[in-house]
C-alpha cells in the first residue's frame, strides 16, 4: 500500500546525506519498511547503472531493487568497452545516457562527480559513491538497520570502530546522526586514523563524542566496524600491531550488552572474526540485505513519487 508523504521526491537527486533532513530520512526509511516487490510499479522505467568503479553489493542491490519493482536496467561496470576509454568526457557520457534512461545510479572515483552529473542532466541522479566523499544510500541502509533492531534512532550510544579517517561510511553516518536526539558517539580508532577535524566540527555542540584508541565496547547500543587498510600505514609492523587491536572476536564481544548490534559496511576481511557471525549481535548480513528495500524505496520515490 502506498504511503503518504509530505515530500515531493519525484525527480529529486540523492547526492549527499547532508542534503537530507531528519524528516526526509525518516520518510525514506518508512517507505523502505513498507515497500514490497511489485512488478507493475516501475514497469517501463529504465535505470542507467553507471559504475565507473567496480562494486559488488551496491550495484547488485540497485539492480535487484529495480527488477523487484518491474523496471529495467542498462549500464556498465568498469569503463572497458565504453566510449570513456576513447576519451569521452563524463559530461558527454551522461548527456547521452539521459536520452535512454529515467534515472542514473552512478559510482565514480572523482569526488563531486555525482553533484556534477546531477547539475548536468534533467533526470534524477542517485549517488552510489563518489570517491571518498559520499555514499548516501549506504548511510540510509545503516540507519534503516539500526532502526529495525532498536526501534528508534534517538537515544543511542554508538561506537564507530577502525579507520575513521578515510572511511566515507563512518563520516556520512556521523553526519546523519546529527539529525537525531540524544546520540552519543564513541570514536574508536588508532591515533593516525582518527575522525577528521572537519567532521568533528560538524558534531560539536550537537552530538557528544569521545575519542579513544582502546577497543571499549561496553554500554554501546551499536558497534559499527570498518576495515583498517594496510596501505594507510607507512610501516607494515605498525599495521600488524594496530590491526590486531581492533579485531572484533568472541572475547571482545563479551563486552557487548545483550541488545547491542554489530554492523559493518562490508566487505569484511578479518576485522570481525567469522565465529562472531553466529552471535545474536551480528547484524551485518541483515544490514547488506536492507540495501534492497532502501534502494527500492528510493527508486520508487524519485521515479514515481509517493
Amino acid at each position: 500500500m502506498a504511503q503518504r508523504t509530505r515530500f515531493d521526491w519525484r525527480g529529486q537527486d540523492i547526492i549527499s546525506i547532508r542534503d537530507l533532513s531528519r524528516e526526509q530520512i525518516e520518510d525514506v526509511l518508512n517507505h523502505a519498511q513498507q515497500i514490497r516487490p511489485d512488478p507493475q510499479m516501475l514497469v517501463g522505467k529504465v535505470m542507467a547503472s553507471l559504475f565507473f568503479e567496480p562494486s559488488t553489493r551496491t550495484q547488485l542491490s540497485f539492480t535487484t531493487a529495480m527488477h523487484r519493482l518491474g523496471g529495467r536496467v542498462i549500464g556498465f561496470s568498469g569503463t572497458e568497452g565504453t566510449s570513456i576509454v576513447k576519451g569521452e568526457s563524463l559530461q558527454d557520457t551522461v548527456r547521452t545516457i539521459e536520452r535512454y534512461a529515467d534515472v542514473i545510479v552512478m559510482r565514480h572515483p572523482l569526488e563531486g562527480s555525482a553533484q556534477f552529473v546531477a547539475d548536468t542532466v534533467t533526470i534524477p541522479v542517485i549517488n552510489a559513491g563518489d570517491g571518498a566523499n559520499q555514499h548516501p544510500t549506504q548511510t540510509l541502509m545503516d540507519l534503516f538497520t539500526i532502526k529495525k533492531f532498536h526501534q528508534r534512532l534517538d537515544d543511542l550510544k554508538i561506537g564507530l570502530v577502525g579507520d575513521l579517517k578515510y572511511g566515507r561510511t563512518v563520516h556520512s553516518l556521523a553526519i546523519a546522526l546529527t539529525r537525531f536526539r540524544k546520540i552519543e558517539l564513541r570514536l574508536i580508532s588508532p591515533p593516525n586514523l582518527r575522525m577528521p577535524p572537519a567532521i568533528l566540527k560538524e558534531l560539536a555542540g550537537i552530538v557528544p563524542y569521545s575519542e579513544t584508541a582502546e577497543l571499549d565496547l561496553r554500554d554501546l547500543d551499536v558497534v559499527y566496524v570498518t576495515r583498517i587498510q594496510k596501505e594507510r600505514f607507512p610501516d607494515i609492523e605498525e599495521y600488524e600491531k594496530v590491526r590486531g587491536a581492533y579485531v572484533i572476536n568472541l572475547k571482545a564481544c563479551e563486552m557487548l550488552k545483550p541488545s547491542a548490534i554489530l554492523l559493518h559496511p562490508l566487505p569484511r576481511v578479518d576485522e570481525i572474526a567469522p565465529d562472531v557471525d553466529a552471535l545474536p549481535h551480528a547484524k551485518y548480513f541483515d544490514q547488506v540485505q536492507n540495501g534492497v528495500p532502501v534502494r527500492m524505496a528510493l527508486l520508487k520515490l524519485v521515479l514515481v513519487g509517493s
Partner: protein
Amino acid sequence: MNGELKVSKIKNGTVIDHITAGMAPAVLKILGIERGCPDTVIVAMNVKSQRLGLKDMVKVENRALAAETVKKIAIIAPQATVNIIKEMNVVEKIHVELPRDLIGIIRCPNRNCITNSSERVVPYLTVESRDPLTMRCHYCESLVEGPAAELLL
C-alpha cells in the same frame, strides 16, 4: 606627525582600504600587479585603523575593478572598502560583500575533486559562514576555512 597616515592621493583609479592587515600582497596578486604595473601603485601595510586596529591599503592609478575581482578581495579582506577616485575625489564607495556562491573565484583544495580533474568543471564553493570564514565545495563537499588566498583563481 600625529600618527596620521601620510600617503599620496591618486588622481584617477581605485583605493582599496580597510584591507585585513598583512593581506595587501594578496590583494596585489588578485589585481595581477604583484610583478609590477605601468601605473602608480601605493601600498601601505600595518597602519593604524580605528575600525580594524591595523589595516593595509592599496591605491592603484587608472584602474577600475571587475565584479569578480571585488568578490576575490572579499574572501581575503571581508572588511575592505573600494573607493573609486575621479579627479582626486571619491565618486563611489563600495563595501565589499562576500556572495553566497563563489563560482570561478576560488578553487577547491581537494586534488581528487572533479573540479581539479580533466573534466571541464568550473570551481564552485558556497560560503557557509562569514565570520569565521568557511566555504564548502558545491561538488565534493570539502571544507575550506579561512581566507585561503593561495586558492584564489
